[in-house]
């Protein structure tokens, strides 16, 4: 197992322009942007899963869309296996799609209700012009096997509404695997499933990553799930990564005040455990109106003058953990 870097993001930004009314543009007002992703960089290696954690509006989903090149970056570069895919178009992009796939959050909505399981899983093959029917059958069978839907043939004719949530999600995984990708993105894949079956899907994803040498990007707001499956974790806030490092290090000793607050806020299934909360005031500001300096400073209980003036960039605090903060916690 080599340590090849499969995906690399370099200072990627994604700004969405906000439409101005006619009046405003006449008056010459500044164009406004939603800065969904405001300069993030990270790498994902073969056989490793990286977690992207954060609350709503932090830019995790936009980041996922960028890694899959479903949207082009406003600035910055995205490299897949050394090739710069940020400006790919047309057939090269189509070729790239074979290697990068996604599993979505909602098992009820991510499958076309009119397609059978076979149709759904075979669709990517048809899109990429696998003309031989027997080869398609073989690949679909293999994909369903890998997703632990056994025996595969018996699921061919079944429609999504006849399956349970867990089974549907496995079909979604099979669909993602059928083209034999090298990079898999999972966006909250278990948040809509019952608790007793979540681990099945999570363990499946983890095992596939290791066995097939995939690089995985796992997006969630639930840090306890991230802990379970991810090797490294990045915590995002308002479009930037505020802390990044090995998952266990971040969970056990978070350094950024926001990470500390997030982790301290996660409820624990032990009635005798008392958490040490970290009070954070206010609400998440809108991405239209990002605070000056450190974006977290208006809510940070430890903010100093420098935090209000200069935005900190990611700095190494231990050998493999980086924090964007002037006063990282111990």
């Amino acid at each position, binding site marked *: 197992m080599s340590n090849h870097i499969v995906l690399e993001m370099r200072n990627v930004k994604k700004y969405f322009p906000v439409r101005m009314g006619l009046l405003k543009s006449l008056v010459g007002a500044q164009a406004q942007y939603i800065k969904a992703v405001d300069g993030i960089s990270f790498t994902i290696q073969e056989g490793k899963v990286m977690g992207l954690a954060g609350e709503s509006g932090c830019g995790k989903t936009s980041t996922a869309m960028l890694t899959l090149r*479903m949207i082009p970056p406003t600035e910055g570069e995205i490299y897949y296996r050394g090739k710069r895919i940020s400006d790919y178009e047309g057939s090269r992009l189509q070729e790239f799609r074979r290697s990068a796939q996604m599993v979505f959050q909602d098992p009820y909505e991510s499958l076309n209700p009119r397609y059978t399981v076979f149709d759904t899983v075979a669709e990517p093959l048809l899109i990429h012009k696998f003309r031989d029917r027997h080869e398609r059958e073989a690949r679909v069978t293999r994909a369903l096997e890998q997703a632990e839907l056994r025996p595969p043939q018996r699921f061919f004719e079944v429609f999504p509404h006849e399956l349970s949530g867990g089974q549907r999600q496995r079909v979604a995984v099979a669909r993602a695997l059928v083209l034999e990708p090298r990079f898999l993105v999972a966006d909250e894949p278990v948040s809509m499933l019952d608790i007793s079956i979540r681990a099945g899907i999570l363990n499946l994803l983890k095992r596939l990553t290791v066995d097939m040498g995939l690089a995985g990007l796992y997006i969630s707001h639930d840090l306890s799930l991230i802990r379970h499956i991810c090797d490294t974790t990045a915590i995002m806030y308002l479009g930037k990564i505020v802390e990044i490092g090995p998952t266990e290090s971040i969970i056990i000793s978070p350094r950024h005040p926001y990470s500390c607050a997030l982790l301290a806020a996660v409820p624990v299934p032990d009635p005798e455990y008392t958490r040490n909360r970290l009070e954070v005031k206010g609400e998440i500001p809108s991405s239209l109106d990002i605070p000056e300096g450190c974006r977290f400073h208006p809510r940070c209980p430890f903010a100093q003058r420098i935090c209000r003036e200069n935005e900190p960039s990611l700095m190494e605090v231990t050998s493999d953990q980086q924090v964007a903060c002037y006063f990282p916690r111990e």
Partner: protein
Amino acid sequence: MVHLKCGYWKRDSLNKPRTGRMAHAQPYFKAIWDQIGIVWEDTLGRIGMILLFFFILLALFGPFIAPYGAYEKCWTPDGKLERMQSPSWRHPMGTTYYGRDVLSQVILGTRQVVIVGFVSALMVVVVGTNIGLVCGYYKGNVDNLLMRLTDIVYGIPFLPFAIVLISIIGKGVSSIIIAIVLILWRSTSRVIRSQVLSLRERPFVLAVKVSGASDFRVIYKHIAPNILPMAFLYASFAIAWAVAAEASISFLGLGDPNTISWGQILFYAFLTQGVTSPYWWIIPPGVCIMLLVMSAFFIGRAYEKVANPQLRER
């Protein structure tokens, strides 16, 4: 057997799973078959379907059933024209001013009405659905342009337009169909567009785009099967409108002079007799027009209950 949720066991066709290319037509076939079943369950829908079926049979086999020709003048044994005869055993619906058998005219007129009705409805739905699909999916300038066009077409009143058009391009079956299609696509496109606007945001559409599907594929293989119910709904309404439109056009005398249709029967009745037209001449075609329009509406109504709350399978 596959153990599915809720403990159902489903019979699988292990021996012949559908994996060939035709497998991709399955979503459409299944969709169509489902819709027919849904309509059959509703009482009004069932009446509508039976009536419609009856008229279709009449249209197909009319020439073999009708006792006389459409424009055939009928003579009494002693050589007199059977003009304006009230209903009798020989002419169950009486005769016209020109001595023609009304029953035969009604039976033979069915074909014209059904053809115009179905062909126009089909074209209306095809045009309207495609415009709706394209607008809803691409949004932006294409959408704006086509929606403006739809607005304009909404403003055009049907009959005056039809009159002008037919006086320019001449009378005939195709003229009627063209007139109908040029105007009636507007409602379908609006409705389909709004459906597509919401469908395009659903995760399964994004999923297939991530797999690399082209826009064409996404629109026609993934979104379209899901709007089929709505298209079916508007197809049945379109039949109703087209039949009524054809009747109006023929009634004004703009229909094909060589082919009889119900509207045309009424045209001749009013032409020769005006408001004093006898009941046996105007009631049969009038009732037929009503019944056919109503049957199409019943089917549509029965179906609407289901087409609107989309995807009841959950």
